[in-house]
Every structure is written in structure tokens, then in C-alpha cells.
């Protein structure tokens, strides 16, 4: 069984009390993904957020409960810059995932520290995907210094670890598309993606919707350079490693968040 998977946005604007239409649409689509993960009876979500970016090895969160309040270092002046979170971590799966990363010849780093700052992307995604806080998570960092293809191996290791424990996993990447962040304080109604980045985002999403894995992975590097894609679009490597991308993805929403491109994409589980 290839697990269900999703790409969801990372920006906190999705939780704004007074959102731009695009932010509200992206938030609603992310909630829909949460409904579908529950309908698919997913036990634990394998989560990658590009905002937990690291440089040494692959960090796996091994704290059983990530509870606290995050004050975002850029968006603190807005309601969505203050984010309470309470994530239950599937510690058994986290350790198995770390072991599987090591076994695949990479370096896993088990992370369990009081006061560890959970990144904004993870908090935003978890609150929208799991508003009642009943879900369980296994979380890995995004190593920006490793080759992007390493994220595919990391995801595959997570799926293997989950199946070894008899878990039904979901695979979720929290990432934007193009960057091109608007470098000033704007009103939500002013939000838009610049045309060249918009063209690139749509091209990538079209290939994802067509289930054309080779095309999607083949354009990753060019997309990263042309549209300054979030973390060189390592998210798509992670999703591909988790078994998605080789079948049509359903684009549930696409739009700007402060000038960046953001999308919600869903892949159904598939019999193998």
C-alpha cells in the first residue's frame, strides 16, 4: 500500500483572523486534507517542514509532546504570529525512522530537548490538519546541505519504519512553492504572486496533476533557480520518496501568501 500524501503551505497567514481570500482558501483545503487523512485511518503522519531546516544529518523529533507557544520572529505584530501548539509525537515510530535512516547509510540525529522551538510551518500545518489535536506525528528536519535527493531516501525510510511497526502512515510535506516574498508590509488584499513565478508554479502543479513523476522531478532544479523555490523544492523529493508524485495529485488550492506561491495537493493512497 502506498500511503496517502499531501503538500501543504508553511506560512502562518493561513491562521489569520482576517485572511486574504487566498489564505482562507489554502487553509480550508489544508483542513480538507486533514479530513481525508482521518478518513484514510492514518495512524501517524510522517511530517517534513522546510522551516525546520538543518545542516548536519537528518534530525528526527523524539520528544513525545511538543507543547508551547511560538512567537514568530518576523510576524509577531500579527495575530498569526502567536501560535499555540500541542503535538503528540509517535516516539516509537520516530526512533524506528531514525534507525531506518541510519540503516540506509545516512546520519540520523535523535532530537529530544526541553524547550525545543517547533517551527512555524509545523505548527500551522498541524493546527489545520488536526484541529482537535487527536493525531500523531513523526517529524524529520529538512537538511539544506544534503543533496535534495536525500529527502526521498529519508521519506522512504519513514514509510519502511511505519510498515515495520504496522502503522498506517500519511506523508505530508509542509513547504511553499515560489518565494518572491513581498519585501514590505502589505494589506491582505494586495497579495499576489509575480507573473513569472506564477507561470512556474502552475507548470509544476500541472505536471503534479498529470502524475508525471519524471517531469516533476526533472524540473525541480530549474524551478528552484527560476522561482527561488522554497528549499529548492526538497518537498517534492520527500513526497516522491514517500510514494506520491508517480500518480496524479489533486490540486485542492493554489494562491499567494505574501507574494510567495502556495498550494495544497492531495494524493490518495494506492494499492501496490
Amino acid at each position: 500500500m502506498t500511503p496517502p500524501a499531501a503538500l501543504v503551505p508553511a506560512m502562518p497567514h493561513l491562521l489569520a483572523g482576517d485572511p486574504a481570500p487566498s489564505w482562507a482558501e489554502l487553509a480550508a483545503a489544508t483542513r480538507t486534507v486533514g479530513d481525508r487523512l482521518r478518513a484514510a485511518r492514518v495512524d501517524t503522519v510522517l511530517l517534513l517542514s522546510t522551516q525546520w531546516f538543518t545542516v548536519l544529518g537528518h534530525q528526527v523529533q523524539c520528544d513525545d509532546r511538543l507543547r508551547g507557544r511560538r512567537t514568530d520572529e518576523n510576524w509577531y505584530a500579527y495575530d498569526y504570529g502567536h501560535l499555540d501548539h500541542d503535538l503528540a509525537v509517535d516516539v516509537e515510530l520516530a526512533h524506528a525512522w531514525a534507525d531506518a535512516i541510519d540503516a540506509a547509510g545516512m546520519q540520523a540525529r535523535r532530537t529530544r530537548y526541553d524547550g525545543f522551538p517547533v517551527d512555524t510551518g509545523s505548527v500551522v500545518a498541524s493546527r489545520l490538519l488536526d484541529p482537535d489535536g487527536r493525531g500523531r506525528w513523526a517529524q524529520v528536519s529538512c537538511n539544506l546541505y544534503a543533496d535534495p535527493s536525500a529527502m526521498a531516501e529519508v521519506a522512504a525510510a519513514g514509510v519502511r519504519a511505519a510498515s515495520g511497526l504496522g502503522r498506517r502512515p500519511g506523508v505530508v510535506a509542509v513547504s511553499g512553492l515560489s518565494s518572491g516574498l513581498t519585501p514590505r508590509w502589505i494589506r491582505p488584499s494586495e497579495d499576489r504572486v509575480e507573473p513569472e513565478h506564477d507561470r512556474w508554479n502552475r507548470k509544476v502543479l500541472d505536471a503534479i496533476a498529470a502524475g508525471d513523476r519524471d517531469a516533476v522531478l526533472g524540473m525541480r532544479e530549474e524551478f528552484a533557480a527560476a522561482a527561488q523555490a522554497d528549499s529548492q523544492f526538497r518537498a517534492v523529493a520527500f513526497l516522491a520518496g514517500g510514494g506520491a508524485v508517480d500518480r496524479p495529485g489533486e490540486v485542492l488550492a493554489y494562491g499567494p501568501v505574501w507574494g510567495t506561491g502556495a498550494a495544497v495537493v492531495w494524493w490518495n493512497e494506492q494499492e501496490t
Partner: protein
Amino acid sequence: MARVFHVTAGSGRSAARRAPRHEPAPGPAAVPAGPSGGGGIVAGYLAPHPPHLVYAENPPQNEPRSTGGWEVLRWGYEELRRRLKAHRPDVLVVHAPHWITMVGHHVNCVPNPRGVSVEPIFPHLFRYHYDFRTDVDLAEAIVDEGARAGLVTSALREEGVRVDYATIGALHLANPDWDLPVVSLSANNNPYYYSDASLAEMETLGAATRRAIERTGRRAVLLASNSLSHLHWDTEPELPEDMGVERPFDHAQYAGDMALLQTIREGPTSRLKEAVPAHIEATSSETKAGSLTWLLAAMGWPAIAGDVLAYGTVIATGNAVVEWVP
């Protein structure tokens, strides 16, 4: 392998933003006397912040314990500390690349930032209990002068924003007693979008910082919290302080750092307007976050040489401790 900044080193657009500007920056103006006598910028330091250096020192504020390591760089910092005290500053002003602000240049205006900074990238090395005072008047003056110069700025007044390791690292390594007020500035760049700081804006921010220091009559020491060459390993040895594996990433990175340091040692600083962007291009230097350009612009690109107190690598990145006294 370290490819993150290797392939693109920012987009074409951000490379264009790095292009040096050629209009002459005004020199430091006469300034009113500060509380310690003789205000203005009394010294500037390139003060790199690898958390490894704090970890290696085993200060009481940091939870992890080490067996040492990176001694030559830390001896350089010991010399910096002696010199810094002799300058009798009223305040330390630090620009650091890991307080990442996507929109604009932010200044920490919280009077007493305190908490535990668990570093998400290096949590095994850096869990630092911090508690320091902000020079709020100067912080607000920098926000004000920056805005007047046309920059997007923001005054952080919210308690609870975690202070990053680049800010704490430079401040701790320069002044482990924490007995001086601080002003902390963010870096308007975004590594996960591969976007560099605009060096032209850093010149403007530097000039605004200088005006604010003059306006408030402070005797200030500036800290540019930047490493140099920035390709590094993507895994770590069992013992983080294993100096048996510590070395430059490759010869080109080392040579790029030496070329920059030679220019620094020869002076005048105006040569660095060309040399810093070239060094960024050659070595993905962390100065792309703009801290060094900010410092030199604030000092008015003085016609002096810098004094290199130490150089060493940390997980293969190049790091130099440098002093400029105008």
C-alpha cells in the same frame, strides 16, 4: 556535500542585489559626548558565532558540556575581550544572520530579553540561558533612522521571540559577563528561499545605525556576527569537538578567505566594497547576510586596516575574529 549555497549562491536577482555601490559613503561626523566620554563608534569587530565556540568554552549559561576544541579561534576572542573592555563602550550593537526576518530590518526593543535558546540546528551544542538588557533608546533610534532612510523596519516589542544563536553567540564570545546593554538587529534574508541580503540596503542600515548612535551620544562597539567561507559538511563526527577532522572545506574556500583577510590586513576598508561581494561569489561567505557590510558602512568605511586576531574553521566554514578601530 554542502550544496546549498554552492549551486546558486542566491538567485541571479539576489546576486544583482549584491553588486557593490560606488557612491562614496560619508565619513563619521563629529559626535556628542556619551556617558563614558567621547561618543560614537569606538570599534567594530567581525565576530563569528559558530555555536561550537560557545559549546567548547563550557560557560554556565550553556547546558551541553564539551572537552574543548577550536582553541585558536577562542584565544582570538580572549584578545577581543581584552580590547573591547579597553574601549569602555556604553553599548554593544550586533547584526546577526540567524534572526531571519523575511520582511524588513527589525530591531529588538524588548528591555530585558530572557529565556532559553535551544538551537534547532545544533540543539546538542547550544541550549543557552540568556538574560540581558537592551539599550531601548538606541534601539528605537535605529528603527527611526532606518525608516527615515527609506528602509522597511520594525521594532520588536513582543516578549517571547527566542533570541537566535548568532546574536547570543557573538555577544557571549565578545562579552561573556553580559555587563553591557545590547542592541540586536535582524538580518533581512532568507536561507530557505536562497535569498541573500541586499548589500546596498545594508549600507543604508549601517549609515542609519551610525546616525542613531550619534543622536543618542552612545559610545558603541559594533559586532558583525558572520562567518566567512560557508561550504561545510552535512554530517558530524561522533565527538563534535573532534579536531582530527576539522579542516577547511577545500583549498579554494581557504584561499578565498585568505584573499579577503589580506585585503582587510592591508586596508583601507573601502577596498572591501569590491572584495566582500567577490568573496561571497567565490566562497558562499556568510557575509551575504550583510552583517560585515553593515558594520563597515556604519563606521563610514574608514581608511584603516583591520587587525586579524584569529582564523580557524568550524565544521569546515572559515571564521575570522577581526578588529577595526577608527
